[in-house]
């Protein structure tokens, strides 16, 4: 039978997938990564597919199966999803074996329809390809004997899970896509840790495999299966982007023949946060109830119906039931979850939760762990943080709390939830539009990496005085000509301010205020540590002193609460700042930029990054490594002489470069305690300059740590009769630009000499 069966329109039919491949959006790169594993060309055989809750991982794996089936390579795909219906570890293992044989038979026969057929193991025995018969027969026989002989559960489980390994030993290569590993925990018997058994069996199978499940659970399983060693690469399946989520809503609505418009489409994307489960649930409900999603009212009515009694309700209800099977405990859990989420940051000590839930330690631990895995709460050391990013979960929890804990009438809860969601809809969209329009301060701060930028870009008053109104080319030239430069820190972590100080969200959107931790000059020392606090201010005109002061105070409050010692405040306002506001910023040593300045800064940082990338592959570059000592600096000096001659430096300049290079080599030799005793040199030839970089591993001399090598000794050396430590002074005198670049280990000195013709 042919493996491909396109329908009349020529499209591929799904095999295990619930939707056609062309309907499946947003996971192209991830899918390719999984498919590459089957070729055996990848370094790793295994892949941990770390999925955010209900991010569509099952459909993703089914699509992968379908594609592998269609490609019909040498590797047989097997998709197995653990299910609550399996009841026990042995049941799940037997189900795995049955599915393994079923998919092997379907693939050998090139019959996609067999992939979902309800066939028993004995049925399958009769359909097995002759080449597979021997190992299948031996495996099934062993299993039946073990079962009849009353072997323990673990032996039976291991026997069933050994199918991929036994197949591989007989020359049959399989690719197991295992889904829902978090469910294995519920099927564990007393003596069978099923999840670990599965992970080990696949690791030892010899073939490629994917282990998929909730991300917080999967990492722990993988860790314990291999005693903490990494054994597979990880692929994270995050939420869909807005664009992909839009495409998904659009295609799903078309498939279900649900009428929708741009406004409601965007609302669904924003309200569900692009969650495939919620999107599908809503649109299926719309189809079933034949509701046209052409107004916010229809949309939110359907949404509330889903929350109160539809698929979304059943989804969350089943998770809560799984976490807390007892109705009384579940009720308490809803109360604690909801009330904790209402606190300012939703964070509380674990012990408080235990007291409030009034549970024994083991049961409490299990519940908290499950909440964590399902990302309904976050367990962090001794604290639990209630709440999640999901608006849908928040709505569900609130409704359930009102019904079950507060005892309010269902009609009231439904009516008010609907009213609230309708009132919220325009705000949800407005927030989305603001987020889209946000300048991306956090992303920009993340790109700070010791670049030198014109100071006027951080001082609106200066920019306004000297650059405002200039044509673009004039402005570029003026900025290029600026000698007062701000050296940006190397930012090592940037996040929304709300992540540090949730209360800030009361006054601004999450995207509009950012905190970046970094180091001045990229020097990892206490003295160089700095925290930038940046905020976008809304103001139609130039921001006045009052508003600037409020924001400075707010950011300083964040710094105080978070214990940031050395901070730099940076305010960004669309039209910049009034003279009085600029005075205030200067008094507080804060930076202030307009949107225009921010655009220019972003362009310059991008250009600097591109230049850095170009430098890495510069064709006119020479590299040299010399051992320290034995006058090897002379070899370097003679080399640089030859290079400098190629671009016609004058003899005097050549001697200056040589002397500077010798001094740099001596510095490296004398001060670095270098472990490899080598000096690494790069000579880059540009049209108007020669850039020499000298680096060595080892310790950084203290004098370089704090001041980028600036010398304390301003007088002439012989005057003070200081006999040593003149190297850097000499280098600075002999070269046009001298800068220490940040490196992780040791030092890197960059020296530039410009070519002066004639």
């Amino acid at each position: 039978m042919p493996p491909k069966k396109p329908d009349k329109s020529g499209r591929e039919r799904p095999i295990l997938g619930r939707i056609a491949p062309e309907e499946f959006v947003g996971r192209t790169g991830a899918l390719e990564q999984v498919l590459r594993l089957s070729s055996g060309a990848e370094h790793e055989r295994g892949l941990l597919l770390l999925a955010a809750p209900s991010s569509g991982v099952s459909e993703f794996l089914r699509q992968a199966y379908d594609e592998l089936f269609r490609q019909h390579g040498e590797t047989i795909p097997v998709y197995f999803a653990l299910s609550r219906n399996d009841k026990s570890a042995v049941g799940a293992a037997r189900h795995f074996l049955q599915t393994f044989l079923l998919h092997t038979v379907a693939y050998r026969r090139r019959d996609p329809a067999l992939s979902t057929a309800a066939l028993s193991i004995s049925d399958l025995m009769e359909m097995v390809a002759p080449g597979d018969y021997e190992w299948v027969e031996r495996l099934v026989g062993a299993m039946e004997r073990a079962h009849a002989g009353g072997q323990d559960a673990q032996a039976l489980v291991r026997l069933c899970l050994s199918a991929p390994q036994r197949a591989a030993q007989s020359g049959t290569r399989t690719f197991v896509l295992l889904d829902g590993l978090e469910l294995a925990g519920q099927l564990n018997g007393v003596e069978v840790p099923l999840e670990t058994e599965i992970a080990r069996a696949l690791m030892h199978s010899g073939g490629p495999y994917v282990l998929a499940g909730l991300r917080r659970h999967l990492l722990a399983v993988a860790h314990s299966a291999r005693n903490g060693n990494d054994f597979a690469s990880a692929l994270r399946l995050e939420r869909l982007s807005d664009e992909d989520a839009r495409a998904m809503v659009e295609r799903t609505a078309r498939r279900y023949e649900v009428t929708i418009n741009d406004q409601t489409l965007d609302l669904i994307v924003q309200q569900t946060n692009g969650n495939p489960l919620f999107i599908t649930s809503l649109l299926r409900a719309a189809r079933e109830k034949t509701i046209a999603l052409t107004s916010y009212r229809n949309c939110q009515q359907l949404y509330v119906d889903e929350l109160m009694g539809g698929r979304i309700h059943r989804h969350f209800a089943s998770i809560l039931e799984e976490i807390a099977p007892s109705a009384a405990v579940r009720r308490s859990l809803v109360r604690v979850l909801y009330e904790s989420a209402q606190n300012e940051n939703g964070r509380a000590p674990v012990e408080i939760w235990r007291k409030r839930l009034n549970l024994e330690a083991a049961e409490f631990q299990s519940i908290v762990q499950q909440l964590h895995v399902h990302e309904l709460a976050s367990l962090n050391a001794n604290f639990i943080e209630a709440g999640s990013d999901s608006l849908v979960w928040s709505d569900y929890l609130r409704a359930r709390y009102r019904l079950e804990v507060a005892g309010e009438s269902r009609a009231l809860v439904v009516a008010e939830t609907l009213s609230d969601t309708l009132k919220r809809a325009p705000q949800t969209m407005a927030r989305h539009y603001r987020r889209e329009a946000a300048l991306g301060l956090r992303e920009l701060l993340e790109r700070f990496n010791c670049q030198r930028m014109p100071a006027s870009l951080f001082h609106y008053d200066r920019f306004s005085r000297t650059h405002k109104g200039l044509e673009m080319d004039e402005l570029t030239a003026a900025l290029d000509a600026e000698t007062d430069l701000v050296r940006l820190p190397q930012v090592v972590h940037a996040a929304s301010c709300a992540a540090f100080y949730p209360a800030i969200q009361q006054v601004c959107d999450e995207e509009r205020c950012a905190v970046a931790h970094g180091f001045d000059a990229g020097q990892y020392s206490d003295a160089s540590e700095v925290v930038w606090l940046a905020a976008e201010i809304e103001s139609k005109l130039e921001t006045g002193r009052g508003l600037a002061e409020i924001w400075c105070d707010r950011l300083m409050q964040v710094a105080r609460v978070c214990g940031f010692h050395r901070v730099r405040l940076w305010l960004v306002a669309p039209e910049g700042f009034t003279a009085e506001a600029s005075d205030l910023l200067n008094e507080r040593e804060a930076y202030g930029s307009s949107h225009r300045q921010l655009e220019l800064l972003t362009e310059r940082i991008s250009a600097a990054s591109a230049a850095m990338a170009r430098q890495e592959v510069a064709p006119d570059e020479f590299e040299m490594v010399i051992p320290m000592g034995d006058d090897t600096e002379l070899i370097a000096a003679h080399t640089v002489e030859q290079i400098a001659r190629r671009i016609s430096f004058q003899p005097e300049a050549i001697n200056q470069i040589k002397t500077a290079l010798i001094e740099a080599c001596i510095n490296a030799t004398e001060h670095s305690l270098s472990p490899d005793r080598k000096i690494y040199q790069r000579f880059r030839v540009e049209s108007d300059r020669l850039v020499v970089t000298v680096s060595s591993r080892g310790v950084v001399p203290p004098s370089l740590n704090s001041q980028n090598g600036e010398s304390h000794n301003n007088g002439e050396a012989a005057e003070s009769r200081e006999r040593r430590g003149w190297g850097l002074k000499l280098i600075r005198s002999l070269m046009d630009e001298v800068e220490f670049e940040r490196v992780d280990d040791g030092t890197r000195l960059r020296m530039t000499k410009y070519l002066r013709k004639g």
Partner: protein
Amino acid sequence: MAELATGSQVRSRSVGDLAVIYAGDYLNKLSGERIERECRRQLEMGCRALIINFRETELVNSIGVSILLGVIDAAESTGAQLIFAAVNHQTVQLFEMLGLTRHVALATDEEEALNTLTEFAATPKAAGH
């Protein structure tokens, strides 16, 4: 009567109570220390003036310069004259940059240095000096 000494791997010659020491092509720590030792040896032997000839010196590094400062100190402490001769342009710049030229005389070549020292020796010293 001139005599040539190379025992310390530094070439030198004596002209009466003057000594001429020849620096090599690269003045660094090692070669600098050899020059310094030779200068001190000459001073201990009663030499009244020293000429260090840099005719062959192409490169000088900062450690070499710091050692020359030691030579200047040693000459000063014994009251001997010291002249650097035939220093190339780049090295002169280096000496100026590091302030050496305030403490030592420069001569275009060895002959000029010798003439200068001969003239100096012929000049009667002021009383008390």
